[in-house]
């Protein structure tokens, strides 16, 4: 229903857009931030790709239970993201500084891996790395919002997410090239990863302006309001628009099965040969990469919230396909296409929708609130889904989640119904 809706609106607006407008839609700051994310993701995915090999073959450790800390990390990560968003808004927009600290912290963690030879130490370094990621996410999205005219934010976030995903796909290739050249030189992988991360921080420092004038107010003297206090940041939830958006993102997050569970189900339900399992995340990422920009641009023409909802309907279709009797490689590919489309239609689009619901001086906290709500909800969903799997088995757990997602989507449709975005004329 939403898909048809979006398509209809798109057709009506298409004549408006031309190549000239397209190039103007993505400001230099967004490209710079995209480059920073791309470079940083190359660095971090290099480490992620070789870490299992390093732990098992180089250190000779059994990594089972290594993921146990993930729960704690997720909770801490969510709080850090809130703090990052709030701090970035304080003191007349310190987005760049806070983001820089976040990127810097993660960059410092790479050489530290050279010194960590035990699982507790490696876990600690990874936790610090994730803290850096939590810290930088909200200020970065705030800067993208501020640098872009409101009617182009969907495309801007799409471009950023596409660059980010490109880095994530390149990282493992670089890592294995280094590993090949050095014959198991894991320290060389960590060293190169550290150098790449340092380059990312430098690009941020050099090419992202410290003060980003909000593109929509065109230097209308925003009254030098007092620094947003913590109270003000949390008080953002008193804004009905942001409250509804946070509520919907949280509600839908509660019914979004984590990637690893989905892949596990795909493999077990579809009798997928075990050796193809590592390719599943690549499939999702590739589709996300391809569709992030077009769907972001679409979000600028149709209602962003509606596209966000439509993305979840696509996810629902994906769940349906996993539960359907259609198995085999084509079915798996279809699920991955739907899964990647879901990310492309929701990830950057939600950030763009959030940007429209908060004033410029609260962009950081606004992005953090919505993002944190979604992340915590997804984490809660993981815990519940694992428990449901134990009780009823994976299939039933997914069927129940799919039903819950359908209900959430209906409620979200109702909640977001009244708040059509007001695009500046």
């Amino acid at each position, binding site marked *: 229903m939403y898909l048809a809706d979006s398509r209809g609106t798109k057709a009506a607006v298409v004549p408006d857009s031309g190549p000239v407008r397209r190039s103007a839609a993505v400001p230099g700051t967004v490209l710079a931030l995209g480059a920073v994310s791309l470079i940083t993701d190359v660095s971090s*995915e290099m480490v*992620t*790709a070789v*870490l*299992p090999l390093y732990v*098992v073959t180089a250190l*000779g*450790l*059994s*990594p*089972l*239970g*290594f*993921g*146990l*800390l*993930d729960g704690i990390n997720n909770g801490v990560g969510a709080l850090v993201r809130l703090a990052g968003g709030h701090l970035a808004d304080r003191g007349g927009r310190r987005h760049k500084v806070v983001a820089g600290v976040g990127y810097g912290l993660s960059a410092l963690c790479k050489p530290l891996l050279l010194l960590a030879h035990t*699982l*507790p130490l490696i876990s600690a370094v*990874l936790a610090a790395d994730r803290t850096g990621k939590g810290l930088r996410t909200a200020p970065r999205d705030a800067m993208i919002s501020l640098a872009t005219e409101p009617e182009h934010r969907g495309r801007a976030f799409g471009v950023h997410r596409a660059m980010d995903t490109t880095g*994530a796909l390149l990282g493992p*290739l670089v890592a*294995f090239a*280094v*590993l090949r*050249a*050095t*014959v*198991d*030189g894991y*320290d*060389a992988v960590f*060293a*190169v990863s550290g*150098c790449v991360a*340092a*380059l990312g921080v*430098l*690009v941020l420092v*050099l*090419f992202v302006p410290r003060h980003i004038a909000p593109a929509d107010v065109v230097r209308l003297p925003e009254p030098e309001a007092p620094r947003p206090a913590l109270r003000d940041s949390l008080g953002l939830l008193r804004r009905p628009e942001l409250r509804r958006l946070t509520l919907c993102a949280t509600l839908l997050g509660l019914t979004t099965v984590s*990637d*690893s*569970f989905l*892949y*596990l189900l795909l*493999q*077990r339900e579809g009798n997928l*040969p*075990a*050796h193809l*399992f*590592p390719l599943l*995340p*690549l499939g999702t990422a590739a589709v996300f990469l391809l569709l992030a920009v077009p769907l972001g641009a679409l979000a600028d023409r149709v209602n962003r919230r509606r596209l966000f909802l439509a993305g979840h309907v696509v996810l629902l279709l994906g769940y349906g396909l996993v539960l359907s009797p259609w198995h085999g490689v084509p079915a798996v590919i279809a699920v991955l296409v739907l899964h990647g489309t879901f990310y492309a239609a929701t990830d950057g689009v939600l950030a763009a929708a959030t940007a429209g619901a908060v004033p410029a001086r609260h962009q950081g906290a606004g992005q953090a609130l919505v993002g944190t709500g979604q992340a915590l909800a997804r984490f809660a969903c993981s815990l519940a*889904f694992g428990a449901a*799997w*134990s009780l009823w088995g*994976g299939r039933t*757990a997914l069927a129940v989640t799919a039903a819950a997602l359908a209900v959430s989507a209906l409620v979200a449709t109702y909640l977001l119904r009244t708040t059509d975005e007001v695009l500046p004329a």
Partner: protein
Amino acid sequence: MTRRSRLLILLLAVVLLGAVGTGAVLHAAHRSGMRDEQQADGPKVRAGTVSLRVSGRQLLFRNLAWGPHRDEIATVPAGDPQGPRTASGVKCLRFHAAAGTAICLQAVHGALEDTYRAVVLDSHLHELHHFPAAGIPTRARVSPSGHLVAWTVFVSGDSYAGTDFSTRTAIVDTRTWTIDDNLETFHITKDGHPYHAADTNIWGVTFADDTRFYATLATAGHTYLVRGDVKARTLTTLHANVECPSLSPDGTRIAYKKRVKGASPDAPWRLYVLNLRTMKETATAEHRNIDDQALWSDNSTLVYALPGDYGSDLWTVPANGTGTARRLTPSAVAPAYLG
């Protein structure tokens, strides 16, 4: 700062960081090159013919001694484990053999990344059949008859989460080449009740015969010794806190890794033996942390790997809790006794 000077700084940084990165790569490449040089004080290794149909008792393992035969399956007389080694030319990450059949878990160096495969070898270590493996090899076993082979690999499912590890264990019948490539699909009975969960992991198969086997089942933060049945496709829990079981040749005891209280979280396991009739646990005289699936060299002696100067060394200790641990041979891993 002008755009020009910013670009100049960036260029300078790229050159500088590029030099550091290149230096690290060259250093690591040089170091790995050294591993192809024979150690002066290391074990003697020479190329030769290795057969699983041996006259006299032989110890086979993956040779870790530096030199041209590093990582090859090598053999020594069981009575002279520190003596000269005969290297087969076959490289394996993990290895086991029994009754003329061997299982060898190998890395395949692809253009983009490494993949893994499980290769079943005949008594001349020639390939009979191979299967793709889903992740990083960790355990391998052949049944006493040589008919069944099993292996376990580590997979990290989601490249974005990265730290979430699980295992995949497969069993192959070499008479029909049928494969059960994920033991998690077996019917699990835990404490007398049917059990299913998303987080089940199974690893470390040890065979009793061509139907029954033992393995580790992990779920909800606990590990269990399970008895498995290949034909009925069932797993039944027997005992808690057991990892990497290894069945004694007489089938009465299981040597295993036990997570002990008060040990550091980084080194939590000690080598124990479980009597399957009385379910009584006995600690061995090896007091260090062990992370290996032990091997019975006879009905009273265990062999296992511990970290060593060149990766790992093989050690041995009596199975009944007496005596002391003693180094069997340096620079070796993944042992198997034949003959």
